[in-house]
């Protein structure tokens, strides 16, 4: 429960000032092979608190592989990962979550037949003791989901509504709400605007803004430069498994970034 207390403090904006520029994640010389395919070739990557990094690159550039390593879905073959300055091993999604890394996958990790509340708490349900064992505390999960929906202006009829009946934007909102509730220090968004309507995209941008205000470090993976440019502070460009560029927004206009991106693709 300590975790959710921290989360609510964070959601209320109480982020310590001295933590504002803290380096949250640092990945050094990450290599990954899939059989003969060398998917990541010694990639370095880092993100600090309260910043948004646009991780860009074409299909097959290695973006998803890099974040899957950070999210604990696959293991790296070589390289080091530091979390808040300390070297860590991330061998499972659980370990990644325990560190404070939450991922919103482009496949949208949402289970249609489950309610919005059960989706948000899936894998980390609120439980209470029933004498013979622990059972899920649905009332608590519904109540907390309702609060979270209010904070994110997530306009879903009820936290008890099945996720199947949410729009694309709402589903992304649910996935982001899950990440925020569990006190994400680092929020990974893999193509968060994919298949969304214009209003859905605006909603997701709004959620991202809120997470950032609360001090979350956001990794925004996309190949849509026009969407990521306004919200990111830094851009890391991957091409064929290598880091081609790591540039701050103030040092690079959208036009320059587009040119570099096109050149990197060639």
């Amino acid at each position, binding site marked *: 429960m300590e975790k959710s207390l921290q989360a609510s403090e964070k959601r209320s904006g109480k982020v310590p000032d001295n933590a504002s520029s803290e380096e949250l994640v640092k990945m050094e010389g990450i290599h990954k092979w899939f059989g003969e395919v060398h998917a990541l070739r010694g990639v370095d990557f880092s993100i600090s608190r309260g910043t948004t990094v646009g991780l860009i690159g074409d299909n097959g550039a290695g973006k998803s592989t890099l974040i899957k390593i950070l999210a604990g879905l696959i293991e790296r073959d070589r390289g080091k990962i530091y979390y808040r300055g300390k070297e860590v091993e991330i061998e499972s999604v659980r370990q990644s979550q325990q560190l404070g890394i939450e991922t919103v996958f482009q496949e949208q990790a949402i289970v249609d*037949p489950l309610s919005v509340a059960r989706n948000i708490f899936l894998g980390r349900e609120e439980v209470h003791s029933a004498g013979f064992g622990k059972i899920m505390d649905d009332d608590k999960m519904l109540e907390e989901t309702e609060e979270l929906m209010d904070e994110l202006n997530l306009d879903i009829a009820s936290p008890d509504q099945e996720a199947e009946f949410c729009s694309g934007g709402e589903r992304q909102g649910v996935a982001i709400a899950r990440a925020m509730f569990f006190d994400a220090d680092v929020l990974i968004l893999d193509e968060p605007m994919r298949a969304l309507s214009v209003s859905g995209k605006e909603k997701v941008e709004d959620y991202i803004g809120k997470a950032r205000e609360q001090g979350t470090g956001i990794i925004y993976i996309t190949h849509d430069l026009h969407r990521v440019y306004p919200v990111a502070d830094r851009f890391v460009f991957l091409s064929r498994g290598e880091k081609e560029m790591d540039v701050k927004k103030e040092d690079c206009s959208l036009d320059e970034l587009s040119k570099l991106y096109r050149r990197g693709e060639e």
Partner: protein
Amino acid sequence: MNISGKDIALWFIQNFVWLLAGAFFIVFSVTLGGMFFNLNNLHFIFYVSSMIGMLVLAESIALISGNFDLSVAQNAGLTAMLTGVLIIKFNIPGLVAVFLTIIIGGILGAFNGYFIGKRGLNPFLVTLSTYLMFDWLTYVIRQTSILDLPGIYMFPGQGKIGGIYAAIFIFLIAAVLLFLFLKKATYGNYIYAVGGNPDATVMVGVNAGNVVFWVFVLSGALSGVAGLLYTGYAGAVTSTLADGKMFMAFAGAIIGGISLAGGRGTATNAVGGIILIGIIEAGLTMMMISPQMQGFLKGVLVFVAILINQFRTTFRKRLLMPS
């Protein structure tokens, strides 16, 4: 609490199987009069339903997890045979043997669970092969019946408590526990989640392979108990104890509205499916309908159930989809 027309419509479509069971009950009661509508007959319908009911529960949990199990009935038959042989060879006490059926059934289920959950093999192919293995192994072990079994071992399948067959209580307890487990336990929630979207379940950190493994263990244990009840019902272990029951296990689950796509359905509606089949079987038998025609009509019933389920899904979506 405000109850809207939509809530009532939703309740009706979600519990449609009970309405259908009620409708058939009334039709047979009116047509057959006192021969059908009497307590003894109802008692017997519930008694027979409780055995197939255990298999329907076993099938339902596999279906909810997005898998299916062709071997539930053969598991029941093999478990009964193995336990029977162990009793006569090693003189195992009856009470121990009762619990042994749960363990043996669970182990047979674990075989399916390991290859489907942990090795990612196709559930149809794995359970088709275990269907054949379990079925023929039963004959390989022994082709003659085992008659001389301890009274306490036979009690769950043929004994009575307060004039009511113990099998009915055992089935109802299993159904209620399964219902609560699926609805309230975190692991029950994972079973729905794995059935609804296994990839998403993995992405949030749940070990989906483990969940599937334990689903098949549980399904196997329930099948083992079915074997125990069938033994009591038949008064012996025979090598054909659960033959032909696999079809009915599926039918009960489908009629009860368990989704073949996974992630949806409740144990209570599966019970409704079992009772509906029990009522129809008893009614048709009393109407002197031939077994061949009954078999055909059961097929029709399953087909109609599939159509009803499709209509139910579409109608439910229309009701719940935000305008």
